[in-house]
């Protein structure tokens, strides 16, 4: 956790959530769900009768422990230096540091203390309830519902909160029998929704967070503005790929991929919300669910009109949820959306009128006389929808509104002092995001079950969006597809693999390692980054036109090979694909034609390419992934990641431009008083050739800096 101290709230929350998902995976791996692990009571003897209530020894132990822990905790927090330091970390971390405190160590101890207390509660709970991994993890909602009563700060408040919560759960359980109903609304699941309801209500009662000036002190890595032309090309490639691979897939696989694409669109909805504007929502799949349900119950004909209705409903619900929740920020906002997700799961999706038989069958799309008649057709529709929405989002990012969202993420207080109504801007982006997520559900064209829309599904979506690169459309595709298609264990594994790739990708940028994926926003004293704005031939890469032609020919050949089931050795096949798409294009950079200089970091890149090829050939593709179609998708994804990583190690950014952040002044032995940007300006002033400026290799920089000084 050290790496994210001082990072944005979003990053902290997402890292914590990812950790949680990863631990769930580890837990399921160590203790498979199909094996029971019975536990005895810690204290098996002794009973006490107080006023007609029987207390077992176990319960007495629980109550006693709670009291002792509360008293000790209060003493630690109020009476010891450590406790005071812990509270100081929350108030003002830098002030504590200035006063000789050690915020890093203090935070670590806080984490340790919190984790141990949670472990104690786990031990005590184990004999009362039969714990299984996911429900136990989601107890965190109950815990927050209680702790928020004390505004996450007061022990008596948390204690009171937990007693109120416990009583509420018991009373609601007692007064709502299995067939209880309120009008047409079945209340049999009300008991399970109580913690979420309480959490939501208590959070809404919190006073508005006040704007804080300089709450963030960090130099942020400039986020490249996405390129509209690249996005359009990407969309076309995506649709072509889906047509190609979809036609190779069996029926059930196509149906699974429908879910994958529905979820990919839901993940896409996080791009404007979290990526652009820094807001957080853990309820995106709830909106997908609402979209699916609206389509299934009203628009059973599949008419496109109902897609728009579904989108409008989601957008309105999104705005309604956001309106009260957005007075809050960070952790409270995340909790409020999580509570909303749980509430909808138990109280909306479980209603027989809403999802009959706990399923929702979303019809195929129909536009006027045009009717989609198969999973494959719907798959193409979804791919087109994804490509269109992605392109709209890219255009949005480049518009005035997109700039404003980014500005709001960087400094809300500055936006307010410019006259921006933060509230309406946030509600707007929330509504947009909910609408996109809803479209994913309404267009999915398959049958969903209730469990597709639980909080435990929404959490990994947020995580995968960040791992895949939040704010990037491609990341959303990767994340959503993974979650929709693969079981959660595989998802976690794949997410880790992607993380490794992204770290490797950053190796080409020394001093920049902290920026890999999740850890995206570590402070840097003097960010030195300045990209060439020069467009044209990618240095050291195949010329673009030829590369595209070669890629089309190669793709057609691969499709034929897969179609005719020529492929016998999948490891070899994968290696060939990687060779064709990830290795060959960069070869000219490593082995330059005579008369041209080598560019970038040649040694490490060569090593990496060999490792990549070897690993690709050794992965047991055929055993790991049963169906041909998914195997192809996995190999393609692997290849793309491999290619991006290669570019990263070589020192190029994903669009193929040379990235000079790797050229640290120490590295080339120069005075570091000038930043790259300043060096560029200085060079422009002394009249250095524009062409030279556009290729700031280390050598060029050396010339520039020398030119500026001498």
């Amino acid at each position, binding site marked *: 956790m050290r790496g994210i101290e001082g990072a944005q709230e979003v990053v902290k929350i997402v890292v914590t959530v990812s950790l949680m998902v990863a631990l769930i995976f580890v837990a399921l791996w160590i203790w498979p769900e199909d094996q029971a692990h019975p536990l005895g009571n810690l204290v098996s003897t002794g009973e006490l009768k107080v006023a007609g209530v029987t207390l077992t020894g176990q319960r007495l132990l629980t109550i006693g422990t709670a009291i002792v822990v509360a008293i000790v905790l209060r003493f630690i927090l109020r009476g010891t230096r450590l406790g005071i330091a812990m509270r100081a970390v929350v108030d003002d971390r830098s002030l504590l540091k200035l006063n000789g405190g050690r915020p890093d160590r203090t935070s670590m101890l806080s984490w340790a203390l919190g984790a141990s207390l949670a472990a104690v509660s786990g031990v005590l709970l184990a004999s009362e309830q039969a714990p299984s991994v996911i429900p136990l993890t989601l107890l965190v909602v109950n815990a927050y519902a209680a702790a928020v009563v004390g505004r996450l700060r007061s022990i008596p408040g948390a204690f009171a909160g937990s007693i109120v919560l416990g009583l509420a759960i018991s009373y609601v359980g007692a007064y709502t029998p299995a067939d209880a109903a309120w009008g047409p609304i079945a209340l049999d699941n009300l008991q399970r929704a109580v913690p979420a309801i309480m959490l939501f209500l208590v959070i809404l009662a919190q006073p508005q967070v*006040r*704007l*804080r*000036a*300089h709450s963030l*002190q*960090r*130099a*942020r*890595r*400039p*986020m490249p503005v996405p390129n509209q032309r690249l996005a359009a090309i990407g969309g076309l490639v995506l649709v072509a790929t889906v047509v190609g691979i979809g036609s190779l897939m069996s029926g059930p696989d196509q149906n699974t991929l429908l879910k994958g694409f529905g979820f990919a669109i839901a993940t896409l909805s996080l791009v404007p919300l979290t990526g652009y504007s820094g807001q957080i929502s853990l309820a995106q799949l709830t909106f997908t669910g609402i979209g699916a349900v609206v389509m299934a119950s009203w628009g059973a004909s599949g008419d496109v009109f109902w897609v728009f209705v579904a989108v409008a409903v989601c957008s309105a619900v999104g705005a309604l949820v956001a309106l009260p929740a957005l007075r809050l920020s960070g952790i409270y906002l995340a909790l409020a959306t999580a509570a909303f997700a749980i509430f909808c799961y138990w109280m909306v999706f479980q209603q027989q009128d809403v999802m009959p038989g706990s399923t929702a069958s979303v019809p195929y799309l129909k536009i006027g006389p045009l009717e989609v008649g198969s999973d494959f057709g719907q798959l193409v529709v979804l791919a087109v929808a994804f490509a269109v929405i992605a392109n709209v989002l890219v255009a949005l990012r480049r518009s*005035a509104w997109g*700039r*404003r969202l*980014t*500005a709001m*993420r*960087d*400094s809300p*207080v*500055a*936006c*307010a*002092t*410019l*006259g*921006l*109504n*933060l509230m309406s801007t946030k509600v707007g982006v929330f509504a947009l995001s909910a609408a996109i997520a809803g479209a994913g559900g309404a267009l999915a064209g398959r049958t969903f079950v209730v469990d597709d829309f639980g909080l435990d599904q929404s959490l990994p979506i947020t995580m995968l969006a960040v791992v895949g690169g939040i704010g990037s459309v491609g990341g959303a595709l990767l994340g959503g597809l993974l979650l929709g298609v693969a079981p959660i264990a595989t998802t976690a594994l794949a997410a880790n693999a992607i993380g490794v790739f992204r770290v490797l990708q950053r190796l080409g940028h020394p001093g920049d390692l902290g920026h890999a994926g999740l850890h995206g926003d570590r402070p840097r004293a*003097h*960010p*030195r*980054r*300045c990209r060439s*704005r020069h467009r044209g031939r990618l240095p050291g890469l195949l010329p673009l036109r030829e590369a595209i032609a070669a890629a089309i020919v190669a793709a057609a050949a691969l499709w034929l090979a897969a179609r005719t089931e020529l492929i016998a050795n999948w490891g070899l096949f994968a290696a060939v694909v990687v060779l064709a798409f990830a290795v060959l294009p960069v070869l000219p950079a490593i082995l330059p034609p005579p008369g041209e200089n080598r560019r970038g970091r040649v040694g490490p890149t060569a090593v990496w390419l060999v490792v990549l090829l070897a690993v690709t050939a050794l992965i047991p593709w055929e055993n790991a992934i049963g169906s041909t179609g998914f195997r192809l998708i996995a190999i393609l994804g692997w290849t793309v990641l491999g290619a991006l990583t290669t570019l990263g190690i070589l020192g190029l950014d994903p669009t193929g431009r040379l990235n000079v952040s790797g050229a640290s002044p120490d590295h080339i032995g120069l005075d570091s008083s000038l*930043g*790259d*940007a*300043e060096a*560029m*300006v200085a060079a*422009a002033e002394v009249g250095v050739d524009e062409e030279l400026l556009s290729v700031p290799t280390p050598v060029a920089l050396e010339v520039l800096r020398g030119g500026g000084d001498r």
Partner: protein
Amino acid sequence: MSGVTVRFGGHQALTDVSLGVDEGQIVGLIGPNGAGKTTLFNAVCGVVTPSAGSVRIMGRDVSNLNTHRRARLGLGRTFQRLEVFSSLTVSDNVRVGVEIRQTWERRGTTARQFLATDGNLPVDAEVDLILERLGLGGLADVPVGSLPTGQARLVELGRALGARPSVLLLDEPASGLDDPETADFGRLLTDLAGAGLGILLVEHDVGLVMDVCEHICVLDFGSVIASGDPEVVRANEAVVAAYLGAGT
């Protein structure tokens, strides 16, 4: 503003502070660290809520308005600890200021303009004009995150100008600038005031404050201990003891 008092818990950060900035006037606000200068700014902008007193912009009581409403009435500010949009470029920072202003200006709120423009400039032209006036023209496409502090402060100023305020609160805008740059900056402030902008300047560079300000207010421990013309303040013994003496 008048009688502004701000309390944080038991600590009284500001006690009954009153001061005003007229059109075209530059008022300096000086005082030792912790005197409450930034808190005063936050109270004026609505970032903190005073426990007593009122804030008026052009005669209108804005004490109960949100930060963004006050901004729309013509209040602009910069920050002591930088609040630039560091993932955007220099020109995009300023552009966001202009674009945000356009969203609310279209809704009928009038804002006074002070740049010598006809008021209906295309966004690009207005951004270029501001960058040029601040001497940032050559840095338009540079990410703000890679700028040194002094220039980033200018970007903040440019962004605030994009919103066309009538009163501008500047929180240590010259820290991070070297001497010639500070002199240029002083001229820029005088020009802005000459165009009718009221400026409240918090600055540790006493030389700059003495040069450009018509009126100076000295804050210590949350109270005004002296105010008046630069000469008067310079001669005031309490000020010398509290602040200037310690500095020199």
